[in-house]
């Protein structure tokens, strides 16, 4: 397995979160590139590298950057999405606590490219102890004069998964409830108090220094043709060594699980893997054996890479219980704005509960799939389609377990 240290290079170094250690190991040396390249040239490098957003969507980052105006009478902003709440995902927390200066470096380069003078880091409310580490890194950077031309402000969330959705994040920062916005008909930047704003995941921004320093081709030497580079994949659940381990895209899933994860706990057999955080289609053990960790392969398998947070389930796991657990999560986190999601998350949660209580009928299973259809593609944001994905994949791939529970 190729060693990948694009983002996690300094993680194991003691006190890696301090400015001194960061600089001693090459931190901020890419800032000179801002003298070499113009903002548009930086965007071009990112475009060439085919860097894809690491928040779960996987959309080309440069596409979003190019929507930001190079000339505008309104100020531009960068909003770094550190709302990390997708079950199975805990990678951004590693960056902000172990190498926050890498993130700051990435922010400086990004703001230069999109002509922004202020970056906000929206961090989930529960991550206070990691926020403190990040804040002291920012304070160090201010003292060192690194932030003379670009301000960074941490904005603390307060416990809402939906605020990880980019438009809900901006609504939350504007002092309102985190309700996702209606999507515009044409491509345009996001808006923060009517000012053009770029929203990117922490890891996406943290990947920028490596790409700018080494060039697009070096970045593309990792990973696959359509999914270049690396990701901080994560493993949790019934695994011997759960944790976050950087690997290049295209790594076979089982190789990753065995190499970094040390295999299934207690020598049990693998039953299922959710590949990219809860909102992706579950894979059976057989499917996991054919899967490689990149966007295209998983999409062709009717699943998705998502955030790359794998949840590993062994042979003793009851899939009905697992589905109930996830539906409770969605039921709790729905913002409640639009009808199909608000009512559908509650209804499906109760239906699976009924099946678990041994009171379910065959019609209930059919109804579950029907509700999943209604929630798909008819809502304001992609939260409801994610729920539909989860329901459909669990019920179709483990149908027998649901029928036995009736």
């Amino acid at each position: 397995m190729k060693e990948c240290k694009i983002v996690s290079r300094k993680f194991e170094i003691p006190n890696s979160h301090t400015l001194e250690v960061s600089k001693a190991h090459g931190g901020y040396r890419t800032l000179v590139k801002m003298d070499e390249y113009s903002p548009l040239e930086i965007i071009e490098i990112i475009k060439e590298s085919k860097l894809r957003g690491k928040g779960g969507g996987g959309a080309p980052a440069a596409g979003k950057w190019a929507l930001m105006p190079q000339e505008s009478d309104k100020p531009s902003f960068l909003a770094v999405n550190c709302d990390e709440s997708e079950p199975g995902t805990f990678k951004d927390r590693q960056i902000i606590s172990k190498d926050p200066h890498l993130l700051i470096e990435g922010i400086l380069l990004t703001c230069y490219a999109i002509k922004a003078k202020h970056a906000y880091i929206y961090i989930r409310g529960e991550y206070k102890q990691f926020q403190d580490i990040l804040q002291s890194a920012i304070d160090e950077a201010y003292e060192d004069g690194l932030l003379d031309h670009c301000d960074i402000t941490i904005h603390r969330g307060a416990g809402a998964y939906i605020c990880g959705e980019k438009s809900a994040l901006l609504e939350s920062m504007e002092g309102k409830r985190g309700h996702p916005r209606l999507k515009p008909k044409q491509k345009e930047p996001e808006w923060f108090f009517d000012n053009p704003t770029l929203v990117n995941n922490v890891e996406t921004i943290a990947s920028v220094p490596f790409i700018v320093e080494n060039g697009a081709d070096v970045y593309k030497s990792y990973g696959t043709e359509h999914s270049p580079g690396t990701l901080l994949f994560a493993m949790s659940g019934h695994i011997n060594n759960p944790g976050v381990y950087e690997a290049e895209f295209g790594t076979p899933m089982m190789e990753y699980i065995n190499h970094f994860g040390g295999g299934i706990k207690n020598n049990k057999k693998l039953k299922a893997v959710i590949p990219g955080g809860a909102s992706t289609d579950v894979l059976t053990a057989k499917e996991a054996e054919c899967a490689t960790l990149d966007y295209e392969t998983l999409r062709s398998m009717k699943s998705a890479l998502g955030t790359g947070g794998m949840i590993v389930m062994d042979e003793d796991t009851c899939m009905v219980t697992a589905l109930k657990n996830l539906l409770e999560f969605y039921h709790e986190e729905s913002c409640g704005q639009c009808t199909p999601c608000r009512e559908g998350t509650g209804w499906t949660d109760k239906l699976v509960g009924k099946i678990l209580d041994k009171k379910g009928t065959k019609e209930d299973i059919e109804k579950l799939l029907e509700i999943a259809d209604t929630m798909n593609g008819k809502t304001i944001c992609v939260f409801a389609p994610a729920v539909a994905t989860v329901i459909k994949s669990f019920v179709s791939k483990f149908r027998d377990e649901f029928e036995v529970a009736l």
Partner: protein
Amino acid sequence: MSKEIEIIVDAKTYHAQEGSLLIDLLIKEKIKVPYFCYHESLGTDGNCRMCMVEIEGQKRPQIACDTFIKPDMEVRSTGENIEKIRTDILELELINHPVDCPTCDQAGECSLQEFYMDYGLHDSKVTITDKVKHSKHVDLGSNVILDQERCVLCARCTRFTDKITHTHELGIIGRGDEARVSTMPGRKLDNPYAMNVVDLCPVGALTSKDFRFAQRVWFLQTVNSVCHGCAKGCNIFIDHNKIKYQDDVIYRFRPRRNDDVNGFFICDEGRLSYKELQENRQGVSLLNSKEITEEEAIQEAKALIKKYKNNISVVIDANLYSEEIEAILAFAKEINASVHSPLDIYIDETFKDNMLKSANRAANYKTIETLSIDTNEPESGGLLINFNHPQEFKSDSKIDFLTHKRDGADLVFPVAAFSENSGTLSNEDGIIQICEKAISKNIPIPTIIETLSKVLV
């Protein structure tokens, strides 16, 4: 400047402004599309997802309230696919909705019922037994009662208090299916237009305390009229009904849309002003406070007019219909009386606001001005014939034509209120508006015109 273009809806061609909302066109052309959260006064919210239509070239159906008219657009509002979506979303809307119809005031004018009849009519496939529970019959203040369980969370009421009255009393609190409409703890809904949320609410979540359990709406008869509370002349519907063995009564006023006058709303004071049309009414003729017949009263009036010949003043209430005012002018000319309509008494600067309420409380003062009627007070002495004017004037003898009981006159004639008669008014902007007759009492009270014609004979 956006130009007018042609688009196709359901295989028919329509004209619309480029860039305008598709749902506005559908509403205007009466193409039936269900919706809860959209309202022309409040704009788009896009949360109910009911107004979905199919657009040619788009993979997924789109909500009409967030679709802008573009050239060559082809829209389908009917069809199996779209109707299934509506049925499915409606089912989700109904899943936690309490089956309150037998006791809910909204029955008969409820959007949920209407859409269910159009797109539902299916057997419930809900097998879970517990619906989400919230508070019922919460008194929000200002005569509005909230039932959180019936709410479909369309957010019309909260958007009303945010964008229209800017008083911010209502909001949706909580998250997911625990979300519900509420005020802040201990605080009430308290603004002069609060009861409009009852009309805005598409279901029975917000109902009028004043109208609570009063009458089933399908028994109500409706006429078009104009509120007489001030010179704005907000357009209203008068809902009335005559129950067997009882009299025809008004149950409520509702706002009637008029984009040139009041838009979609009326103030609460105007809305509740129907009550005074049915309280403390002068029902019979009186002479020196003793009840007499109409015949006797007419004879007495003729006698008084003869006695005080050439020394008669006539005072006109600026709330009367234009036809009534003109009839009184003609009457005054016949009997050689001076005509007055002092208007100062109607001015109330504290009533005025920057929405609908006017400082002038007289519904038809504009007609007084247009007809150049003298606004000075009448000379004291002689006979004063007062046609419902609220002020007290000094005179030797007085005849009052009254809608409501009042002391001080020698001779009193009862007069029909505006709801018992038809006529026109001119509002403060000079707009002439027609009021239809609503009430036909079992024992009708004569109108001014009817009585005057008998006196003059």
